[in-house]
């Protein structure tokens, strides 16, 4: 597992090794070259997928049954072409992150929507429409991206993809705790997030 600088000293992303099958599963071999597997970081992987028509088409086709959820039905008019609107949102999201790189503390918020003031909360998300980038807060305006997802359900635990993102965060958290980069004080908050 490597920590890759995206915009040092503000934004970093994890590059998971090839053996890390919850990221580099068989499906990913459809969208990435052999020499990219296990090398590229999560930030690059996400925005590559979110600009790939085949990935987005397949994703929304495979997850069509989730689109009956209340959130999607209420916003139906926006979603006449989900792959295309997702690609456009991703471009705006990418641009927002870049232009707000010195204000990341305002862009990332606690993972749990119920927490408004984040004391000792290091698991965070940045959201743009239905797109999410998940990150661990290392210090003031310093974030480590652990992954991201197209969020289809209200709760992360209700979809395999967002559930996997929680797992990835747990692995990275442990990696950082072992190296005394973050402490385990906020671990209870994290465990709480897993149960909601």
């Amino acid at each position, binding site marked *: 597992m490597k*920590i890759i600088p995206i915009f040092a000293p503000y934004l970093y992303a994890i590059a998971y090794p090839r053996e890390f099958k919850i990221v580099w599963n068989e499906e990913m071999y459809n969208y990435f070259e052999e020499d990219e597997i296990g090398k590229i*970081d999560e930030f690059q992987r996400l925005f590559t997928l979110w*600009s790939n*028509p*085949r990935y987005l088409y397949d994703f929304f086709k495979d997850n069509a049954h989730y689109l009956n959820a209340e959130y999607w039905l209420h916003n139906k008019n926006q979603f006449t072409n989900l792959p295309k609107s997702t690609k456009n949102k991703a471009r*705006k999201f990418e641009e927002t992150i*870049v232009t707000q790189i010195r204000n990341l503390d305002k862009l990332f918020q606690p993972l749990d929507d119920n927490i408004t003031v984040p004391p000792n909360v290091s698991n965070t998300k940045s959201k743009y429409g239905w797109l999410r980038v998940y990150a661990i807060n290392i*210090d003031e305006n310093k974030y480590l991206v652990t992954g991201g997802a197209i969020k289809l359900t209200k709760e992360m635990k209700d979809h395999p993809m967002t559930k996997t993102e929680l797992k990835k965060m747990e692995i990275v958290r442990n990696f950082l705790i072992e190296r005394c980069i973050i402490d385990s004080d906020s671990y209870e908050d994290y465990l709480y997030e897993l149960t909601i």
Partner: protein
Amino acid sequence: MKPNVEKFEAIVSTQESGWHKDVEERLRNKLWQDKAFDIALTLLKYKDAYKLNQAELARKIGVSKQYINRILQGKENLTLETIGKIEDALQIKLIETKVYPEETEKPSPSPYHQPTIYNKSRLNFNTLESPHEDYSEK
């Protein structure tokens, strides 16, 4: 520097993220990539509507499996010749062009055309200056 930040910095890789190269390419190639994206979606819908797999679609058009894979991922800057070949093979329209009648003085801008706003000048990588946009959830 706080001790934990120091420890963090110490394990940051020297490897550069390929994202920078990707985003530069997305900016540079936006105009054709947007069209390639739409063409890919049309072909993906065609493939499903006619219950074809990727190899069958490639055969029907007369291109290799590798090439159709690149087209479906929006990675090919297709020539007019290739677009014509696909349209002819599948009997569908991928792009439309308007022929203006002779009496028209000049082609007028389409009311639907949105000029590109995702340009390099907005993303200033050197200074990272903020255009002071609203970064709250859209």
